[in-house]
């Protein structure tokens, strides 16, 4: 990982790239317009669960790739948590070597079709793009191009399986099959380890499956990427909770030399306000799990779900957007976001907020629920909200919301989804007595190697961060894989 800069510099002088750079003047390149992602019509898509973004065409992708200047110091790459060689894959697209582009991405990213869809590029690669920084123009659509390359490869039927080292027979366990676990497993397999991923749920993918809805990330796409990892030799074991089904000690006895814990932030937070346990009030995790993982809206499936006419979703993050847009698709007449700060402070991706607005989602910003009321059966029927104003910035750098006394009023709701964040899942940590934890219940790790206080246990993703993005979790997984590799090599040397 420390050699990302070198890895990226390496390929630039190659003849095909030098030639490509010469083929069009920089001025011409910068005068091109940024590609626009084709989308389903808002009034159609808010009634189906098909993907909102339809993907760019070959022509559009090639045109967009022409905009990229193939900078000598590609700042975009600094913004990528998994260290993708961004200019190289974009130039491959420009030269219409789409499979080559996909292979380039897969050198460092185990889940390109996923990242091309859900990464907050506007805060990462695209934010540090030369266009954004120096030209003050819309950045190269790196995310759209990543998605294009991955989709092209998948649809071509010529999926490239990354090279893996000669199997070394050393067993490594990955705990949790979410983004960090999959990224770690991918790299560990490349190093030649015998990797088994243990997953508590009945499906592989973690938050990619239970959390992110079909209209943003189709499950089929996740499955294809998982299938590729299987082809790389990664083994998967569902319905297995490390720390419960078997202990770490049991697995050590079975020969596992190291562990990567990516068990996620699966413990929803509630606000602890009166009435929050009435029926019809869900955590976003429950609502999305029922809908995405259990397919509760499909009559053929046994898992039940409540539907609401007036649905309030509490929170301003991506999960809140996913929940409210799901409720709208389920037929809610009013689907609203209730958020205690203003639009500017919302942690959700701009694209998601924008999509939600287009789909008819109402935003009640600077409002916060203080109490819920229910009918005689205990089903929520009213929500009392309080108006808020913004004060001085808090520790997160965002302006602190301050309640306005006496501003409370009631809104009719028959369903509420609480999406105010998650805490680390306690199952794995509580099974390890000597594991060093923070006061917030996250695992303490070395920032470079991701090694925990127990030498053979490494960790990353939300169990370390407490609640972040898919791509940051994947970056952690890669770092940890490198850390595990180093740890095992040293152990082997020491004999």
């Amino acid at each position, binding site marked *: 990982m420390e050699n990302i800069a070198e890895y990226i510099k390496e390929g630039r002088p190659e003849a095909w790239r030098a030639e490509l750079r010469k083929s069009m003047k920089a001025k011409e390149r910068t005068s091109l317009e940024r590609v626009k992602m084709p989308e389903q019509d808002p009034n159609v898509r808010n009634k189906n669960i098909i993907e909102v973004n339809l993907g760019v065409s070959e022509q559009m992708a090639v045109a967009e790739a022409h905009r990229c200047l193939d900078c000598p110091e590609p700042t975009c790459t600094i913004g990528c948590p998994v260290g993708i060689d961004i200019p190289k894959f974009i130039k491959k697209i420009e030269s219409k070597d789409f499979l080559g582009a996909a292979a380039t991405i897969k050198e460092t990213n185990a889940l390109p079709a996923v990242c091309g869809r859900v990464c907050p590029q506007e805060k990462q690669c695209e934010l540090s793009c030369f266009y954004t920084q120096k030209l003050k123009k819309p950045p190269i659509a790196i995310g759209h191009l990543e998605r294009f390359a991955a989709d092209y490869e998948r649809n071509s039927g010529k999926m490239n399986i990354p090279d893996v080292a000669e199997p070394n027979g050393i067993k490594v366990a990955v705990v949790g099959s979410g983004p960090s676990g999959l990224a770690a497993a991918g790299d560990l397999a490349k190093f030649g380890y015998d990797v088994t991923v243990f997953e508590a749920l009945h499906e592989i993918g973690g938050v990619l499956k239970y959390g992110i809805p079909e209209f943003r990330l189709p499950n089929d796409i996740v499955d294809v990427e998982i299938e590729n990892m299987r082809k790389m030799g990664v083994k998967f074991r569902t319905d297995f909770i490390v720390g419960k089904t078997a202990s770490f000690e049991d697995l050590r006895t079975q020969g596992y030399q190291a562990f990567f814990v990516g068990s996620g932030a*699966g*413990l*929803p937070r509630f606000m602890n306000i009166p009435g929050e346990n009435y*029926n019809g009030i869900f955590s976003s*995790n429950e609502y999305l799990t029922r809908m995405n993982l259990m397919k509760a809206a499909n009559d053929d499936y046994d898992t039940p779900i*409540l539907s609401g006419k007036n649905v309030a979703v509490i929170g301003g993050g991506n999960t809140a957007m996913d929940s409210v847009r799901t409720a709208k698709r389920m037929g809610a007449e009013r689907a609203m976001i209730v958020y205690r700060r203003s639009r500017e402070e919302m942690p959700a991706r701009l694209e998601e907020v924008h999509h939600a607005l287009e789909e008819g989602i109402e935003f009640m910003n600077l409002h916060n629920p203080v109490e819920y009321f229910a009918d005689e059966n205990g089903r929520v029927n009213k929500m009392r909200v309080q108006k808020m104003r913004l004060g001085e910035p808090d520790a997160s750098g965002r302006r602190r919301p301050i309640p306005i006394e006496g501003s409370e009023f009631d809104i009719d709701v028959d369903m509420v989804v609480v999406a105010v964040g998650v805490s680390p899942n306690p199952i794995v940590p509580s099974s390890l007595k000597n594991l060093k934890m923070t006061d917030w219940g996250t695992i303490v790790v070395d920032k470079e190697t991701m090694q925990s206080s127990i030498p053979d246990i490494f960790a990353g993703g939300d169990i370390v961060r407490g609640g972040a993005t898919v791509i940051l979790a994947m970056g952690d997984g890669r770092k940890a894989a490198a850390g595990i590799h180093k740890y095992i090599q040293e152990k082997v040397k020491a004999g």
Partner: protein
Amino acid sequence: MNKITEMEFFSENVAKIVLEAPDIARSRKAGHFVIIRLDEKGERIPLTIADGDPEKGTITLVVQKVGVTSAKLLAKKAGEEILDVVGPLGHATHIENFGTVLCAGGGVGVAPMLPIIKALKEAGNKVISVLAGRSKELIILEDEVRKHSDEVVIMTDDGSYGKKGLVTAGMEEVIQREKINKAFVIGPAIMMKFGSLTTKKYNIPTDVSLNTIMVDGTGMCGACRVSIGGKTKFVCVDGPEFDAFQVNWDEMMMRMGAYKTQEHEAYEKYLKTIETVA
């Protein structure tokens, strides 16, 4: 895939199911539960483990037909498979030598009580078990309970077996003649509520095992949340056993009815499909 090795009906709607789950059989303790999913389209439901055999690699569940999933499960035969079984989940029962312990089990609640009775007996307690059910055929696992109890009191609502009366009458009878140091009450929510009101009268520390609605069973969704001493707790990771006197029973029962309409409709639909097939 987990193969069913044995299926024994206690009555028309209650059966004991033994199934292959070698890892769980090895790691389970009294109080633990599993989440099962029958097939691709199935829901995830929690079931407390009634017994386990680490040698054979099997666990035992006792299931009562209450809806679609339990009906489908009871329609299975030995040799058939259950797609997903995950566990053991929840905290194991806190077992110590309390002295004399009263274990009151109502209906299929006797099944999760059995491993607790065994563990209490092994820890040196004097165990008095009260088994209750509406009628004789709903008294289950009597022989197994007898094997590990110092005394067994049987109560039926209709008097068809044991003494006539509710579980609470049986409990009171024992409490009045013996010094009870600790009680466990497991059964339907309403039975646990009144059972623990009984022990409360005599200040007997009481634990109950809650069987709320769950999805993942690992703390992720919060469907199982209950108020314990005014604080929201998750039955799956904080329980399933709690101090009975801290449980907000009315809220718990209300939450257990969250999908009543859907469950009822689904069951009607299921009955129709099996009629058509038949």
